[in-house]
């Protein structure tokens, strides 16, 4: 929120200089995003008075005859829409000839036959505001003609304050000033209470019934619609430009000045935090206002900006008092009748005024609405309609529910003072706001929560300075929060206020001292295992990558991974419409991003989101050589090299590893159908490895072989126990098995292992042969079996085992290759 320093200073006359305020705001939890200098308009810009405004025939231009004071009578031609028909006496900002603004020096020129003496300027042209929509205009008599604009529009500083959603109270000058005054212990000068009212007003207001349930939240909360509503009328208002100081403050706060009536409403919102809506009384039929839920689903409401909105039974509307099928729409809601609203919608409550009822150039009778609305209802409507106005921004965070009458009276005061209007004496106020309950707290609770010593007496001072009413009984406080602090609900909220005003800087530094409850034991095991795995992979030469979790249907199709089933409702880009179902496409993409042909050995540990549910995976990719060639040959990146990495990893982790040949339909679509295996880790199948399918490789523009692994985490651990190694010598036997080529080594080895039993220490293949002496379609696999027992094994012990093995091989339909 942007606020001019001078406005704050008006409320706190002893406010320290602006350049000392940054740490103050930070300590209050209202950090400044910046302090922006707001320069005065340049010299050479004078306030002059319009004597006559006449259209220049055949053009869009207006000829303005001006009384410039010292320079006498001058004319200019202006194309600004708000120059048309300007009443005599209106003052404007004139850039006199010879003045430079930026790169432009203004002079005297002739436009459509009119001598144009300088330029009538917009706020933007003068560098004092954002609005370029029209000329800066001021009421007659703002200052003597010829007065430099800078005399009434002085330089200032704008504080850009970051306000967290809990601090609704700080969304106004008064709110910020209250906090500053309490913290700095300075006197706060309250802004005007507005024009005092006596008696009931002329506008009759009906509020909706209190209990309304929202579909979304059927049992939790009852919504109240509006619990406090004030209305007051002002007649005989001469609408026109707002006074210069109102305009200046609104402009510096980042708002656009429109006219006195609109500006008065905005000014009060900035000053007090109370949004108001101002209606043309001619549209408030029968001087009655009905606050009602939109009853007809899909009722079309036109707002004052020309937008059209479909409203329904959960949107709160402000209706005029025309005769409807049902006398009270509120009653109709409870009796489930369906009255026709038949137009007459003055506004969408607390969000935006309607086209019907809105203030126009000829408005002189004004109805001021200043109300408190349900934050939840309004937020819901505003979100659904996409209408985030300054008013609803405040309502959804929480406006002081007691502020309604003051808001109406303050707007009335401005309209009377600056618009020459006459306010009615009475003020209509209906509803009884439910105020937050008192909060009980002890000084000891606060000290205990903060770990900081603060006297209970100081707590009372702090809370009182903030506007709370505090009853102290020894160490016990009974606190009535100020009505504007809707965020004070539980005693911890009070502890924060005490700490905030006492100063967070005073908090000591201690450490918790306890031993966690035993059921927390082992909570970090998975994390530690993952970290160990990462270290081992990096040690094997793999580079860790972290990639995006997002994917799209085309990407999944290109990688032949499962199509994403977890999809985003609101994707940011077409490449990110869902969540990945496998890791390898991410690794392929990371590889693809590298210079063409560059070697890559990458791994990632991350989550995937297939239809079967969220899971953590390890992915590994090798492209190019395992060890690159230099002046000597390197080690090519073969399947064996890739599998060797996995074998080293398993060995280092103390895990048993087995790769089972995958064939046919069991081969993952990503893989080459002949180079694919299931990874069995400590006896459990955890994933797959193999060569990337050449068609996918081609699609990704990856030449040469790419090897992939994808396994589920956490990897299953095996029971570990120490065993004393046997010192007895080993016995060796070699055996060559001839089997069809479709039989994998793994199958042969599994049979041999099973037959030998525990005496087999190792089984290593040393020759794989296809060719002469081996029947067509078969191959010979020669293995060395190492036997070791508790004691030295004699031939008479090993030979029968070999006989058994040979028998089993033959029984399996395979043969033994004789020497």
């Amino acid at each position, binding site marked *: 929120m942007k606020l001019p320093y001078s406005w704050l200073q008006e409320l706190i006359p002893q406010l320290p200089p602006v350049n000392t305020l940054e740490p103050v705001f*930070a300590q209050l939890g209202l950090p400044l995003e910046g302090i922006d200098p707001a320069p005065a308009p340049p010299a050479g810009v004078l306030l002059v008075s319009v004597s006559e405004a006449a259209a220049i025939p055949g053009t869009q231009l207006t000829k303005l005859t001006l009384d410039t004071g010292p320079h006498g009578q001058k004319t200019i031609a202006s194309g600004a829409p708000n120059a048309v028909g300007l009443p005599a006496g209106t003052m404007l900002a004139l850039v006199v000839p010879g003045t430079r603004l930026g790169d432009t020096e203004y002079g005297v020129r002739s436009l459509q036959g009119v001598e144009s003496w300088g330029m009538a300027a917009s706020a933007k042209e003068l560098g004092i505001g954002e609005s370029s929509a029209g000329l800066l205009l001021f009421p007659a008599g703002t200052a003597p003609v010829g007065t430099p604009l800078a005399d009434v529009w002085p330089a200032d500083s704008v504080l850009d304050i970051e306000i967290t*959603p809990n601090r609704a109270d700080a969304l106004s000058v008064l709110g910020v000033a209250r906090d500053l005054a309490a913290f700095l212990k300075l006197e706060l000068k309250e802004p005007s209470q507005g024009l005092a009212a006596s008696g009931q007003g002329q506008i009759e207001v009906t509020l909706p019934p209190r209990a309304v349930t929202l579909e*979304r939240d059927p049992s939790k909360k009852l919504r109240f619609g509006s619990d406090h509503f004030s209305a007051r009328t002002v007649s005989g208002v001469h609408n026109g430009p707002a006074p210069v100081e109102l305009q200046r403050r609104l402009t510096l706060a980042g708002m656009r000045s429109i006219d006195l009536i609109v500006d008065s409403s905005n000014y009060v919102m900035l000053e007090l935090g109370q949004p108001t809506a101002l209606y043309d009384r001619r549209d408030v039929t029968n001087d009655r206002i009905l606050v009602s839920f939109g009853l007809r689903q899909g009722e079309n409401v036109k707002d004052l900006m020309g937008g059209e909105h479909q409203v329904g039974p959960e949107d709160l509307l402000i209706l005029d008092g025309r005769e409807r099928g049902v006398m009270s729409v509120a009653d109709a809601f409870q009796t489930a009748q369906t009255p026709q609203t038949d137009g007459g919608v003055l506004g969408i409550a607390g969000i935006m005024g309607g086209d019907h009822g809105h203030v126009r150039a000829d408005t002189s009778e004004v109805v001021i609405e200043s109300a408190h609305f349900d934050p939840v209802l309004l*937020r819901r409507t505003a979100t659904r309609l996409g209408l985030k106005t300054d008013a609803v921004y405040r309502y*959804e*965070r929480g406006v002081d529910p007691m502020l309604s009458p003051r808001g109406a009276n303050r707007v009335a005061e401005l309209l009377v003072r600056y618009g020459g209007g006459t306010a009615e004496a009475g003020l209509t106020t209906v509803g009884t706001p439910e105020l937050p309950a008192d909060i009980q707290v002890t000084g000891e609770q606060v000290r205990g*929560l*903060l*770990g*900081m010593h603060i006297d209970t007496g100081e707590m009372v001072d702090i809370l009182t300075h903030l506007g709370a009413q505090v009853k102290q009984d020894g160490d016990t406080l009974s606190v009535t929060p100020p009505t504007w602090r809707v965020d004070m609900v539980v005693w*911890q909220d009070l*502890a*924060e206020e005490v*700490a*905030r005003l006492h100063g*967070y800087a005073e*908090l*000591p*530094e*201690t*450490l*918790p001292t*306890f031993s*966690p*409850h035993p059921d*927390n034991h082992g*909570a*970090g095991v998975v*994390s530690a295992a993952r*970290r160990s795995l*990462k270290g081992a992979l*990096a040690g*094997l*030469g*793999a*580079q*860790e*990558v*972290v*990639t995006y*979790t*997002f994917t799209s249907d085309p990407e999944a199709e290109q990688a032949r991974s499962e199509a994403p089933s*977890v999809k*985003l*409702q*609101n994707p*940011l880009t077409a490449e*990110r419409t869902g*969540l990945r179902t496998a890791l390898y496409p991410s690794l392929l993409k990371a590889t693809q*991003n590298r210079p063409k042909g*560059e070697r890559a050995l*990458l791994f990632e540990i*991350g*989550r995937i*989101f297939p239809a079967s549910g*969220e899971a953590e995976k390890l992915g590994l990719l090798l492209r190019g050589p395992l*060890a*690159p060639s*230099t002046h*000597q040959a390197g080690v090519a990146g073969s399947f064996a090299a890739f599998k060797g990495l996995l074998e080293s990893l398993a060995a280092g982790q103390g895990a048993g590893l087995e790769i089972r040949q995958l064939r046919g339909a069991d081969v993952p679509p990503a893989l080459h159908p002949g180079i694919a295996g299931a990874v069995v880790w400590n006896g459990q199948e955890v994933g797959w490895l193999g060569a990337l399918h050449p068609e996918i490789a081609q699609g990704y523009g990856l030449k040469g072989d790419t090897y992939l692994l994808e396994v589920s985490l956490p990897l299953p651990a095996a029971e570990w126990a120490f065993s004393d190694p046997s010192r007895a010598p080993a016995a060796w036997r070699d055996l060559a098995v001839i089997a069809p080529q479709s039989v994998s080594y793994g199958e042969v080895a599994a049979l041999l292992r099973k037959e030998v039993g525990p005496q087999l220490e190792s089984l290593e293949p040393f020759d794989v042969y296809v060719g002469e002496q081996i029947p067509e379609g078969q191959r010979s696999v020669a293995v060395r079996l190492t036997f070791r027992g508790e004691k030295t094994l004699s031939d008479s012990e090993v030979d029968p085992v070999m006989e058994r093995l040979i028998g089993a091989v033959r029984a399996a339909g395979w043969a033994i290759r004789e020497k």
Partner: protein
Amino acid sequence: MQEQALQEIAATADVEALQQVKTKYVGKSGLVTRELGSLGKLPPEERKARGAEINAVRAALDAALTEREGVLKRAALDARLASEAIDVTLPGLQLPAGGLHPITRVYDDLIGIFTRLGYDTVEGPEVEDEHHNFEALNVPWYHPARDLQDTFWLEDGRLLRTHTSPMQIRYMVDHTPPLKIVARGKVYRYEATDATHEAMFHQLEGLVVGDGIKMSDLKGTVAEMARGLFGARAKVRFQPSYYPFTEPGADFAVWWENPRGESKWLELGGCGMVHPNVFRAVDDLREAAGKERIYEGKTGFAFGLGPERIAMLKYGIPDIRYFYANDPKVIGQFRGALG
């Protein structure tokens, strides 16, 4: 004979030739050996003198043989070593080094600090439900605080977690206080990407719950972390802030005496005392799961921060997108001891 033999020994070119000379003179049937064998034919009075004479010759020859053998062996070794010489300035057969991602490195630093302080590290799902991500954390659906965290909603009504805080809820539902954990992982925000914003990034979140846990414990813990990350002279500054799941809430900044540049306050994260509504929501979930309500009356603190931001500040990484582009020239730098 001695002269002759010594000359022959000296003339040998290799160990083999030396062996032949040795055999010729002192072998089983060598000249000297035979001389000794013929001593018995001499008269006893000559035998002793002659014996001594031959033994002297033999000793001299043995010494010469041993010496020559040493010389020849050394020469042979020298020749072999010379022939084996390698130009060690040529490159090795390298298995190119692997490495960890910078985010992992920063997590390592952080988790290392908290492990020393007795915390366990936990994880949780990235696809969350609205209840765990918002409602249970005191952010009801109608609360404007929802605007602070733009959310990726999923078609099935779930969402991508916007922070690591839902893991607080999940952990407390399953465990008994007192407890000390850090939770880590990816989080997501519905945000257009630029140099400082990403739709996906990481967080580390700490949670301590027990009896009589104080805000000063929070500040001391954050200070301990700050010193672990930025050195013994790091200081911590707390300023009031708002997180719906904390009360009181704070933002914390760390004073970094930067050895390579300007020392400054770094805004690193948010923290606060766990809001009683969060404990209530946890107890509600426990009750629904048939467990005892045990969190009422407990106090605790939580804090959260982003590894990307720490890495960017500490190592001068200019753009958050660098972390996920996986350019080997970028991520390959984060090896060894990082300053």
